[in-house]
């Protein structure tokens, strides 16, 4: 089961402080849009004290809308370009956000059709945080939570590294392997996974199943605001690797 976000009920997950803000890091997840539209936020890290510093993924511009990965520092924004369209409602998309450095940010999407798309921004932009807040399904800065999203998220992973060592466009095989076999199927990523959350567990805290953390960050928790409920899970291959599945050899 994923987490089902209902915008009309102002539902979202959040935590303060965000466990990781220093680049490079990678965030990836499956997302099922139930009503994609302008200016609704899927994931982001926001400075609690102001509205001028954040890194966030949202949907914008029209219906179907476009993915926008925004980095904002002291009020100046940098967006990945070109923007990529959401395919349609009622379809699963796999999203990978790679924050390589202040001058290299990537967004990769695996569409339900099987097509993939990648977009980048290399403009120097370094959000500054005093108290970073991380949210799923809403935007949350000094103005309070806003711009809630509709949809279902599952298989959330946060990795304290760029998953592709060269900082270049994500290779499609890696995108598909992450999507269908999971981050634990890639041995060299295991040691850098700071949080994996399948969201198979039920509310309120989705802790019962498929949760793992590591890389020195300790247990990670989310606050469930306004009763986010469980929703369907994306179909995953039978050989999808879960945290406890076997051993992995890391060649160093």
């Amino acid at each position, binding site marked *: 089961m994923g987490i089902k976000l209902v915008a009309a009920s102002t539902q979202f997950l959040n935590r303060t402080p965000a466990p990781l803000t220093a680049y490079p890091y990678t965030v990836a997840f499956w997302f099922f849009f139930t009503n994609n539209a302008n200016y609704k936020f899927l994931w982001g890290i926001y400075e609690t004290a102001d509205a001028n510093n954040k890194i966030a993924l949202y949907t914008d511009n029209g219906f179907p809308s476009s993915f926008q990965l925004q980095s904002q520092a002291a009020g100046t924004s940098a967006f990945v370009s070109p923007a990529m369209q959401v395919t349609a409602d009622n379809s699963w998309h796999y999203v990978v956000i790679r924050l390589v450095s202040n001058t290299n940010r990537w967004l990769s999407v695996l569409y*339900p*059709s*099987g*097509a*993939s798309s990648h977009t980048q921004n290399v403009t120097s932009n370094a959000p500054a945080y005093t108290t970073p807040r991380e949210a799923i399904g809403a935007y949350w800065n000094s103005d309070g939570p806003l711009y809630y999203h509709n949809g279902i998220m599952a298989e959330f992973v946060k990795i304290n590294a760029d998953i592709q060592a060269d900082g270049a466009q994500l290779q*499609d095989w890696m995108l*598909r392997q992450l999507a*269908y076999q999971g981050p634990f199927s890639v041995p060299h990523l295991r040691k850098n996974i700071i949080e994996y959350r399948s969201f198979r567990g039920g509310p309120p805290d989705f802790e019962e199943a498929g949760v793992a953390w590591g890389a020195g960050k300790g247990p990670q928790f989310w606050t469930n605001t306004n009763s986010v409920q469980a929703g*369907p899970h994306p*179909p*995953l*291959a*039978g*050989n999808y690797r879960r945290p406890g599945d076997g051993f992995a050899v890391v060649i160093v």
Partner: protein
Amino acid sequence: MVTATPTFGSVTTHTITLASLASDTNLVAGRAGTAIDNVSEDAVDAMVGGIVTTGTTPTTARQIEAWVYGSYDGTTYSGAATGTDANLTPSEKTLLKLLTVIPTVATSNKAYQWGPFSVAQAFGGTMPRKWGVFFVHNTGVNLNSTGGNHEVKHTPIKYDSV
């Protein structure tokens, strides 16, 4: 002391007509193969794989999906499959178990060798009484029209006591 060792049974070829299988943009309407009777076969697992060939000038960056369906009682199959080689629009595709997603390119008549995948793993570790495969694709054109350019086979895994 008796030792149980894994053994590979005889390869079984599935009955499934993939030749000229129509494309479905929504990746729902596809083709199911005839069910395999595991009560007779008595396998603890089955490694399934095969070959699927795209048609003429498929659309680039699409996919072919291979799923398995199962039966909990030997009669009723998941997703409203019938257990026979027939076109199938599952009642809900996620009631089947995903084996693999094959990304395709625009090359005509390209053969994709897929598998082997564990059927038991797809069903959470235990083989169902009966099971079969289901294919669906959105390549934009029918799959290759020659039956011999497609195949699905499996090898049953059993244990011998020695």
